[in-house]
């Protein structure tokens, strides 16, 4: 049977207050996609982490810059793409937060958690243009 894919695009100003709005929409969409509560939790948390990163570290909370969140899902897969307009983010030089020398650091766990929770994860950065993060979760529908 052919599955129908849904696509929703959300564009927000770089304001951390809007992470709640993103979360509300994500909850509705994971319900619509038929996610289990664990799948929904992992997706919500991953989106929250990347959107917070995009606003804070990508766009540096500049309210003249935006973050775009694209949701694509069907009964089998929930895919997310998040883009900021920042200066770019070099994923290859992120320290491993689980190394003993980093365990007591207060930051640096967000992307690690998303990679742990999702089935696919990729990050592209273009210096001075922005960062695009893509990840997905299989729903086993």
């Amino acid at each position: 049977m052919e599955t129908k894919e849904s696509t929703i695009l959300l564009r927000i100003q770089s304001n951390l207050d809007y992470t709640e709005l993103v979360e509300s929409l994500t909850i509705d969409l994971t319900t619509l996609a038929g996610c289990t509560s664990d799948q929904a939790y992992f997706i919500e948390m991953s989106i929250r982490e990347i959107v917070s990163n995009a606003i804070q570290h990508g766009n540096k909370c500049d309210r003249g810059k935006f973050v775009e969140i694209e949701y694509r899902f069907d009964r089998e897969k929930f895919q997310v793409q998040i883009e900021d307009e920042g200066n770019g983010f070099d994923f290859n030089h992120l320290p491993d937060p689980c190394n003993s020398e980093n365990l007591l650091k207060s930051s640096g766990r967000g992307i690690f958690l998303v990679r742990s929770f999702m089935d696919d994860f990729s990050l592209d950065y273009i210096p001075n243009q922005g960062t695009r993060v893509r990840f997905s979760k299989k729903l086993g529908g």
Partner: protein
Amino acid sequence: MTILANIRKVEGVQIVDLTGRITIGEETSVLRETLKTLLQNNHTRVLLNLADVTYIDSSGLGELVNGFTNFNRQGGKLKLLNLTKKVHDLLSITKLLTVFEVFEDEAKAIQSLQ
């Protein structure tokens, strides 16, 4: 604001009952200020009761680590009580279970701080 912190004292140990979410923004500030105030008042034996904490993000984890470090620096102890499965899994994935002492029994946790 989606977190509440209630402090009670049992056998000389300060127990902080947290309710809600520890996420980026005001919620992590509440945790930070609560722990800072306890240290400023020389309350150096503290249990964070996370039984009613439904959600912690990476900023919340960072704030827990900050608290742990600050208490250690001042010769104090900050320990965790009653983790939900999700929070336990989060601490496990990030290897923070190797940093924090975690208890399921309040009496045993208090005893460990005597």
